[in-house]
């Protein structure tokens, strides 16, 4: 068995290549939505936050977890909505 962290490193290296490949095709016109859209994706830590807030534990754990959920959720919801708001405005002649 390959250790879990090595699998993670494989996934990481390959995703970086995919990321560059995909993103280098985005035209400068859409760089702001690209940034805010990927920014929303970086709110994926919400997945970890949900686990941290929900496994129980003492007050400090719950407080940290809940704070993480709030931060992640603002990032995700706000990020996607603001990106959509911008993209809605781009119209052809």
């Amino acid at each position, binding site marked *: 068995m390959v250790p879990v962290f090595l699998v993670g490193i494989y996934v*990481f290296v390959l995703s970086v290549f995919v990321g560059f490949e995909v993103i280098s095709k985005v035209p400068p016109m859409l760089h702001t939505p690209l*940034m805010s859209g*990927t920014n929303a994706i970086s709110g994926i*830590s919400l997945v970890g936050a949900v*686990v941290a807030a*929900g496994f129980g534990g003492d007050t400090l754990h*719950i407080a940290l977890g809940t704070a993480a959920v709030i931060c992640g959720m603002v990032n995700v919801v706000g990020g996607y909505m603001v990106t959509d708001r911008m*993209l809605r405005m781009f119209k052809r002649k």
Partner: protein
Amino acid sequence: MSTALFSSNVLEAVYLIASVLFILGTKMLSSPETARRGNYLSAVGMTLAVGVTLFGGEITDFRWIILGMAVGALIGIVASRMVQMTAMPQMVALYNGLGGAASALVGISEYMREMHNQTHFLTTVTMLTIFVGWVTLTGSLIAFAKLQEVISGQPTVFKGQHMLNLVLTLISVGCIVAVVLNPIQPMLVTIIAVVALVLGVLVVIPIGGADMPVVIALLNSYSGIAGCLAGFVLSNNVLIIAGSLVGASGIFLTNEMCKGMNRSIWNVLFGGFGLTEASAGGGAAVDVPGGGAVKPYTIEDAATVLENASSVIFVPGYGMAAAQAQHAVRDLGDALEQRGIDVKYAIHPVAGRMPGHMNVLLAEANVPYDLLKDMDEINPEFRHTDVVLVIGANDVVNPAANEDPSSPIYGMPVLKVDDARTVMVLKRSMNPGFAGIDNMLFYRDNTMMVFGDARSTLSKLTDALAAT
């Protein structure tokens, strides 16, 4: 404990689907036709990933999650609806910071839960998550404060700044190594967190307003890296994939912005650009042909020139955003088009305060995106153009970048507006741009300076055209 609705295989499968949706969604951002659907797909991916985690069995108490999600969603919805398009750079900076904070908090929580049975690798990535996450948070808050003008946009430099940053970095490295060797040292973890928060502030304060596009792009990549590290902490591939996608995007944009300014990332990060120029050269004297007086023109003069043009190119800069003049630009563009004049918009890659800032503002004002031209596309066209209208742009149209090897911006790719028959510059006053460099464009024979607030000048021009 087992509240799981499905097996861990299903969980992993859904994470894989979410990862594919993130990549596909980002890929679809390559065209304005598909971009909106792409963003939607990416949001579906996020919903799946979070949803499957909620019901995946690890969670025993939903109360705080529901509370946190409700509060976060409410803030996100309100903020994204209320924010003005001109304030988008600070909004994105703030979201970046919160993403970093979420990752850092996840890191701390995992440390507290697992500090007794972690491998060296896990402890290392946990500490790095905490470190990068907090740097992202305070760095973004400073970027936000500068862009919102809560604090001065000028670079803040002091003696020994680099030395202090170096010492703080070494302290963090030392603490991280110590915690990896012996994980049960919460005090050292606290020190790592505090030092990271301080470093975030210190790395962004020396960077000036005009360099903000680079900083925002870089913080974007940090937030991705923090998410990616959190993925290693939790051994969760969807975090690793999504985080590295964002990290790659941020690094790509950082590089694009640096190319647009002909500066290295180190030159931007070590900061003080503009400040040092101004104090050294006292505003860098320009070799001015013909005595050095600029020629101010009235609105009427400008309107007459515009009436007789057959092609006009608008060149917007940060000044357009500051004056909220994008709608006035569009109105004038419409008035010109009604007279049969060919109208286009030239966008420099670093115009504004974030990558693509000008495009978003003009799109908001309903300018069709096929009229928005990139620098490489539009530069050959200036020499066949009758009038170029520069609205609140300065350094990105400075011919010194091509002609004057002693200029601090020499070598920076610029819009060659002075190739046009007439260049009209709408400007509030003769203050130099953010880089603190005088602009010889203003002294050229074919340049007309029209002073005043850009928005009111533009609407007066529109009225003058309508009256004739």
